[in-house]
């Protein structure tokens, strides 16, 4: 944490980049991290949460080992992206409203668009992009990552 803060000057404009670095390291923004960032930049925790919660990128809970993102962009939508998302939810046994599996193996995110529209529907696991994903392929991918 101290290492991250040391890379930045104590300017308000650095809040978002700091949050991004912290999330990159921890996977999410913990209450402890908020306290430390607040102390460093001289702003309140409320102020930090108001900014962090505005942006879809930031998470406030522990994340799964693998992150699965299913694209819900327009091209993916007309090519079955929503059905793919539902299939992944079923496969991970995630009730609606939950995004991380009980065993912390997977976190599922819906993303508005990856810009790989020509290969719709698209699914991203960790940083690997998969195009033209069928429901059967999605199931296979999940079981491959489950073993890793």
């Amino acid at each position, binding site marked *: 944490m101290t290492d991250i803060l040391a890379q930045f000057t104590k300017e308000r404009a650095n809040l978002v980049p700091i949050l991004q670095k912290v999330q990159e390291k921890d996977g999410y923004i913990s209450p402890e991290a908020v306290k430390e960032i607040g102390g460093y930049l001289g702003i309140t925790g409320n102020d930090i949460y108001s900014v962090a919660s505005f942006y*879809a990128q930031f998470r406030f809970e522990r994340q799964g080992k693998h992150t699965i993102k299913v694209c819900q962009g*327009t091209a993916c939508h*007309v090519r079955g992206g929503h*059905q793919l998302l*539902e299939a992944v939810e*079923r496969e991970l046994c995630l009730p609606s409203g939950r995004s991380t599996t009980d065993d912390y193996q997977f976190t599922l995110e819906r993303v508005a668009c990856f*810009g790989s529209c*020509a290969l719709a529907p698209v699914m991203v696991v960790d940083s690997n992009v998969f195009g033209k994903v069928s*429901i*059967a392929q999605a199931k296979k991918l999940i079981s491959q990552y489950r073993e890793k």
Partner: protein
Amino acid sequence: MKYDEIRRQAMAEWTALENSSKPRILIGTGTCGRASGALAVLETIEKELSKRKLEATVIQVGCIGLCYVEPLVDIIKPNRPRICYGSVTPEIMVKLIEDYIVNDNPHPELALGIVGEGIVEGIPNLFDLPMLKPQVRIALRNCGHIDPENISHYIARGGYSGLDRALKMSANEVIAEVKKSGLKGRGGAGFSTGIKWELCQKAPGKEKYLICNADEGDPGAFMNRLLLEGDPNSVLEGMVIGAHAIGATQGYIYCRAEKPLSIVRLRVALKQATELGLIGQNILDTGFNFPIEIREGAGAFVCGEETALMLSIEGKRGMPRPRPPFPAVSGLWGKPTNINNVETWGDISAIFQKDADWYAGFGTSVSKGTKTFALAGKVERTGLIEVPLGTSLRRIIFDIGGGIPNGKTFKAIQTGGPSGGCLPASLLDLPVDYENLTKAGSIMGSGGMIVADSGTCMVDLAKYFLTFTQAESCGKCVPCREGTMQMLQILTDITEGKGKLEDLDLLQDLAQGIKSGSLCALGGGAPNPALTTMKYFRDEYEAHIKEKRCPAGVCKALIQYYIDPEKCQGCLICMRNCPTNAIKGDKRMIHIIDPEKCIRCGVCAEVCPARFDAVAKSSGVQPETPKELIPVGSWKKA
């Protein structure tokens, strides 16, 4: 260092590469290429070369825009033309190395085309292919041809000569040149770039900022991603030219975090350009200073709006504010700020590398130049294209895109993203420019084009966009926050068969209120998808409302999956894959779906072997199917 010296060094490197006795292999490793397996092909290339102790130069290039045949590999043997191969797998790659690089069989049957000069029997010129022939590449001039992580390649192809030229002109001369080119902002609003610069240049203040808006967030758009991944320096060069014209002291690139490769490539380009003195302090020994910083977005669509974007850079919630004051007068930290889209900056560098008259020679009398479009959805050849403004929709969809796949028919094209509209077949001959699209009820937007076919429900598509804008509404102004919510609710009711005819009037009323009352373009454009679909596809809305029927077979509450008893071969595949055990069946017995248990997930349709194609959807009519299990072949219609 002076430009001539920089250019001399880059040319020396480039010429050495061109005249090298080693073969060159170019592989497209943009995001689309990677999603299609380009990295596995790259691994194969490296393995094969070392296994066979072959010397070759492998260069990772950006994407040429032919996404439908990714991964792409180009092979250039000494004194041979450059041949481009599409849909390359590791197996094909091994074959090409063995047969073409080691021996001399270019495998014309695997080749897409020849790039540049030269003839090989059986291989056409790549740019004569139907997808590429109508295109004019200005913003995308280098994508797929150069290594985006090696600035010498860019410079050898004329890069930064535009900056050199601009720095020898006065600020007013630069602005006059931009005005003469007729360039309009490529982010969507289509405001004259030259006038925008002039406003900022004239605004009083010592400190001025210049921003590149790379927060490409429209679902269905990837023009900026492709340009940044394939040719980041063209954007940086444009920014420095703009900074000289406006007198900007600091530059920012605000790039969407969901496009990580763009950010990587930008960082490399920025570092190299700074080292050569093309960005930063004392640029090209002229005493002009202009550093650029990269800021990553954090996943808020509204931050593509300029006032919201600037607040986000300041480390605040990215919520738009009323204008005036315009950013040209009071922008980032209250200072005069000029903000343009990625593609605009890419066009600027091209205009200065040649000249304004050349650029203005493309396009129509009012919309000059070219525009990139992301062509996706239900179209045969998906990809990223660049055409002169004024090109008709028909030419884009049918000549370039190759029409609609799977024997279906064209229904609509959605342009301009969530603030745009859906245009029907009757408007296919519309020349695409800012003016015509606006007249038709849509917008140019940043250039996303999604094709819809007979299997796309227009009410569902309108609902899709409203779901998006509603979720992305920042909540600051009431018309957008509450209005989009109400519109979404009504559209949801219609797709669930609970709509009333009066709802259509209510949607119109709400739409007008949201359009005129919203603070920014996100709200102002949000009703467009619903308005245009109601205008051009009213019959589909009425079918949902009056007949409780979804003609395209999409809206879950109004459709039923069934197994065609004449086609089912009793193979058990759908039964085994059904997640809710809704399918009854036995070997060689016609399967039956229980509509009560079915959740309409579509898995059965996906897994049913294509040669049987037995899973069908019905809406509004009860399909005729057996009540009990009967043997395959014994079904007789009642």
